[in-house]
């Protein structure tokens, strides 16, 4: 009978999953409700596979995975989560995660994943993999700042607006007339789709 260790801080889900796996997977199931407790239990005995939640109160499943890999523990790991960011998926795969399943998936999907992983294979939810692929494709493209669409002169003006300078001050500093500055500012607003200097400061600073 395979031995599984589930680590999840949601008590209702933890108990539901324990009962489900004990009934359906015919497995011996141990439970930990925190990263710390899981590490203590791993010191006592290594399971055949581990099922980790990604977000927990005292740390993430990825941190736990990283720690057990650092200790040289090669036990297969399945991440079972409500939501996982694409970059977390890529990080998990780099750390040798064998399976990723979403909590709202059909429970039979979880059973299939556990069986595959126990047999030495890998199984990642198709939607999770799709998002990770989309992310890796877009991550390959150079990062575009919102102000990239501006001309060099407009970028210079936008920088001065972000510093809080008025049109008159900008005109003095750049040796332009106030009218020319107004035309540039209007063009910047139009290109960046903002309605005011305030919006420009808030949006482009955050971007």
């Amino acid at each position, binding site marked *: 009978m395979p031995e599984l260790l589930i680590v999840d801080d*949601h008590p*209702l*889900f933890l*108990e*539901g*999953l324990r*009962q*489900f796996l004990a*009934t*359906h997977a015919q497995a011996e199931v141990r439970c930990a409700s925190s990263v710390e407790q899981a590490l203590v239990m791993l010191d006592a005995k290594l399971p055949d596979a581990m099922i980790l939640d990604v*977000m927990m109160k005292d740390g993430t499943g990825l941190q736990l995975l990283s720690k057990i890999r650092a200790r040289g523990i090669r036990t297969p790991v399945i991440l079972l989560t*409500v*939501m996982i960011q*694409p970059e977390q998926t890529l990080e998990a795969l780099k750390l040798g995660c064998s399976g990723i399943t*979403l*909590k*709202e998936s*059909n*429970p039979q999907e979880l059973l299939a994943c556990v069986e595959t992983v126990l047999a030495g294979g890998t199984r990642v939810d198709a939607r999770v993999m799709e*998002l990770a692929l*989309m*992310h890796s494709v877009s991550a390959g493209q150079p990062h575009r700042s919102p102000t990239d669409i501006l001309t060099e002169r407009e970028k210079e003006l936008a920088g001065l607006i972000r510093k*809080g300078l*008025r049109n*008159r001050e900008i005109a003095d500093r750049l040796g332009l*007339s106030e*009218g020319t500055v107004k035309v540039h500012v209007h063009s910047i607003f139009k290109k960046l789709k903002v*309605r*005011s*200097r*305030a*919006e420009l*400061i*808030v949006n482009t600073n*955050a971007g």
Partner: protein
Amino acid sequence: MSLASDSRVGQVASGAVQHRVGHTLKGVAVAAARWLPGVLLATRLLLTIAISIVLGNLHGTSSGLREIVNWTQVILVGWNLVGLLILVLPPRMELRLQPLMLVCDAMIGLTVIALFQSVLSLPALLCLIPVGWLLQQRLGTPAAASLALSVIVTLLLRDRFEPWGVILEFSRYRGLVDADTVVIGSIIAVAMAGAFFRAEEIRAWREHLIAIGGNVRDLPFNQLLEHVVEVLPAHTAAIMWREIESDKDGLLVVRRGRQEQPHLDPAVFQAMLFPTWADGEYLFSGTSNKVLLRNRLGALVLQPAADVVGGIADALELRYGCSFPLIAGNVRARIYVEHGHHWSAHVLDECGLIAGAIEDAMERHSVMNAWRDRSLVEARHALSADLHDSVLQTLAALRLRFETILRSQSDDLRSGLRDDLESLVTLVTAEQTHLRQLLDVTRRQHGATQSLSEALGRCADLIIKQWGIQCQVAIHCPDFQLNAATAIEVEFLFREVIANAVQHAGAQNITLAVNLQDDALLLAFRDNHEIGRESSPALDNGAIQSNSVLTRLRKLRAHAYADTLGKSVLLSVRIPLSA
């Protein structure tokens, strides 16, 4: 205790004295700055007297020189008279002649410095200070800088001339020169100190206004006007504004603390808010029907504007004063203040400073509001993510528990109970899928599409289970793929209409027909209940009354109307699909 108390009293008294002295100096200096032409007249007269005294001593030295001295004195008297005359000319003439007079003043002052060396250099220099000040106001900084450069060059070259002054006994006039110097120097010092205090006052006012702008959720225009009449001492001020996006106009007048909102003819409003001849600040006067402003080169221009000045007098009951524009966010505004200006360039420039300070305050207010809104949105998203996470966890746990019960106790479960549990599993699964779709922002951001018939079919199944009613969906465009973001909104609308129909009208049988027509999605909801029962707020005859349904319709930019159709109520919705 007593000493401490005395010390505090002393500090308070000292502060009060400082405040009083500062206030007095400021008043004198502001008056000096405003009456700069008068100061120039005084220094010009002083220089004339000094030259006359010096030339009087040369009068008897030779017969040839006597004639020159006489003519020089005539010219000097004429120079002073013209200077005096210019001050009483109408503003239009004054604005044209004053620059010429200033150039003459500069030439005479420079000539005196070059020819008379130390004896008359001091009064000439003192005369040139208000000249330079006025040149800066009237012809801009380059003109004042040119004068300063000329003075330096003259001082450097003056030894190349045979100084007339060397033949005079300087000590005889030392007392007079000293007294003149003290008087004129004091006037200039007070004027400069006053200008400094006034600049400090405006700076403090600006800081105060910006602090208010950053700390209040709304910056009411009446409060803004109260601050304006505080810095530009006035009884009446008005603000007119337009919100660019909504084209919403407004006018507010504060007259001796009372607020008024007079109605203006749209054409007059437009002319006063956006005068075609000025995009900056200007002074106006109803007695001459003229306005004073700076042109693009910064030079002062006095021009007739009878219609606008008349409009200001009729609409706002302001006979004279100043006006300046405000641009902040999507608001374009103009403030009018009743203020005695005597066509002073100084007042005009002060208006520019005040307008800049108000714009800064309004911008700060906009920035702080934008940050607040952004923070609230982010907090709401974080809260919503937490909530969704918790709900999804709970749903997943319920589903696992149900599955476990169904399997582990399959033999013990009665058939009805098993059906109920299986139905609950289906319901939980459907809710999980729906919630996942809502949370899947990435797919929507990448412009993913989804089958409308699949989405509405799934939604109808869920509704049937949730409400226990009959719901049929007839889709006449089964292959239609809809933008994922729009599909979710359509699904929300579907749910909202059904919830209204069931909760408020007890609907038991609803049909939804879907079709495509002219780049629009047409939805027809039919509530097959008997007429005579309480009607549904969503499917009421005529206008849609449910706020929740109306909110959904607005998000989809949809149009809808309800109507009775035989024994049923029909709600027709048209959703445009083009951007």
